[in-house]
């Protein structure tokens, strides 16, 4: 049974247009996440790719219960997490942890590293004594190669570099012994020369502990390096999902094709064939009844504007596109 099941997940935000607007106008909604489904087996990892505004970060925050869904369900080990309250929620928070995009902001500027690391132990009541907790923190810091740990204890976040901070964030997430780790653009704020170190560290630690991992990134190259499965999101829906290698080498959905073609390659010899689509994703405000990508799609058909395509198996992956459907 999969450990994490996301089932037709939806998150709609009401759009505020002032006191008067809400009285006269019909309420409008931003459809940030609009029917996302996927499942992760224990120990599996998946990359969630897409441009900014496609709903990938919202999906992550829904899974972590930082937001509550407006539709659909998220089941962790079979239980719906939307209903969790109090001790149940606390228990779930021990299971699901997050690595933030911006390590400079993920640590409270007024807490020392030690204090920040002790916080989850205090909240969850982990550790028999103060000394025991400090020892756990020291061990966790060592695991992310911050050695010797006590050299970092009394430091404030602004005294560390981005790479070191992200290691602290990872160590803190692992401190409570989670089984699910979600990482939102874990290296995009870091200098290029230290990115590889953090990526390798995350790969080693999650594999060794058998963690279920969800990486969220706009960078397909990073996802290829880190993940065996990939889902591509567009305007709040998954348009293609399957084994990473297949998706990147033989993208099926026109959007995936455009996305893959747009990635510049460090090797000038391997220029990818360009795929023409119009610039800029629309805001998820007026969702067309048909395929969300129809307006920008170079291969758009009449049916695309009427019927929203569902994910269906095509050559080892799942694609939501009418090009691969039965005749309409």
């Amino acid at each position: 049974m999969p450990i994490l099941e996301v089932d037709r997940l939806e998150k709609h935000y009401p759009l505020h247009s002032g006191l008067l607007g809400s009285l006269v106008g019909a309420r409008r909604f931003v459809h940030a996440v609009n029917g996302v489904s996927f499942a992760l087996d224990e120990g599996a990892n998946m990359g969630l790719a897409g441009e900014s505004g496609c709903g990938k970060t919202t999906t992550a925050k829904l899974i972590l219960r930082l937001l509550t869904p407006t539709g659909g369900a998220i089941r962790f080990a079979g239980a719906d997490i939307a209903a969790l309250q109090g001790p149940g929620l606390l228990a779930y928070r021990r299971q699901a942890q997050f690595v933030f995009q911006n390590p400079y902001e993920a640590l409270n500027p007024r807490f020392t590293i030690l204090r920040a690391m002790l916080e989850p132990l205090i909240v969850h009541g982990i550790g028999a004594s103060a000394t025991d907790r400090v020892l756990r923190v020291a061990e966790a810091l060592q695991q992310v190669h911050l050695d010797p740990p006590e050299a970092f204890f009394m430091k404030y976040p602004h005294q560390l570099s981005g790479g070191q901070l992200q290691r602290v964030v990872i160590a803190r997430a692992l401190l409570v012994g989670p089984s699910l780790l979600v990482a939102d653009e874990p290296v995009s704020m870091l200098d290029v020369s230290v990115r590889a170190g953090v990526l390798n560290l995350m790969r080693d630690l999650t594999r060794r502990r058998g963690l279920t991992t969800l990486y969220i990134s706009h960078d397909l190259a990073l996802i290829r390096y880190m993940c065996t499965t990939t889902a591509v999101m567009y305007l709040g829906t998954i348009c293609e999902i399957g084994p990473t290698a297949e998706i990147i080498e033989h993208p099926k959905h026109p959007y995936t094709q455009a996305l893959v073609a747009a990635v510049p390659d460090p090797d000038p010899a391997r220029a990818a064939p360009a795929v023409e689509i119009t610039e800029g994703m629309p805001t998820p405000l007026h969702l067309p009844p048909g395929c969300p990508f129809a307006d920008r799609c170079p291969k758009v058909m009449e049916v695309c504007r009427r019927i929203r395509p569902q994910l269906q198996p095509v050559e080892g992956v799942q694609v939501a596109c009418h090009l691969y459907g039965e005749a309409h």
Partner: protein
Amino acid sequence: MKRLAFILSRLAQTLLVLLVVATILFLIFRLMPGNPLVAYLDPTFTEEMARSLRRQFGLDKPLYVQYLVFLQNAVRGEFGNSFFTREPVAQVIWNVLPNTLALTLAALVLAYAAGIVAGAALAARRGTRLEHWGIPAVLATRAAPEFWVGMLALAIFSFSLNWFPFGGATSPGSIYRSIWAQLFSLDFLHHLALPALTLALYLQGLPTLLMRNSMLEVMDEDFITFCRMRGLPERTIILRHAARNALLPVVTAFALGIGYSIGGNVIIETVFSWPGLGRTLVRAVAAKDYPVAQAAFLMIAVVMIAMNFLADLLYGVLDPRVSDERR
């Protein structure tokens, strides 16, 4: 269309605030210790007379009826008669309102014109001696009590040098054909000068400091750097790009500043015996003349909230981002 919606929503908000302020006022005057009639009722009045008076003022009805009557009267501008002079309250208020508006607007215009120029100058002279001592000097004008500055001004310019009158808005015995004739008479302006300058001296601190901070901030913005990179003349950069953007927060402050200044009028008008709303309020409260006090207070609130609303609209015109804002 968007702009109209913006204006309407601001208007709705403004009216709501006004309603709440009026309600608070009503409650204060009805629920505070001491019935509004206590001051009016003489101990020699008989119980019978007191009851008939209560009926006359509507105080025998339930509170919500009194409230509705109050609102209705407020909208119509009916506030009854003064307890003491027996004049209709509306008359009292209308007589002094032009004086207050003249004083406030004169002072505000002076203060903001001077403040914006001074603030821009302070920003341009960043790091110089002018800035080093100029800012504490401006702070001193904000810290000095208005009434004390007014007292000094009176003692020096009126009592000692005899340049200006000791107080009031017109010389005793002056008669004018219309209110406009009065407002633009030399005599009136002579009376206005000292209080308006005193008030302006106090008010200029806020726009001066804000304009300076705002200019400094804008001058560090990327789009100003980009103007420099394009080699635009410094004058154009400062006047057309920096100052226009820097003015935005000053306009917001103008809105809030009006609040403080109208409130502050209470003080200035008292010092200079200026026959305005503020002095009327102070005297009415001191004399427990509740109908006048209530009306004067409400009028001050109306003027203040209305000016806030106008400043809001002005901001919407100056900054194209505001009326489009979606949140």
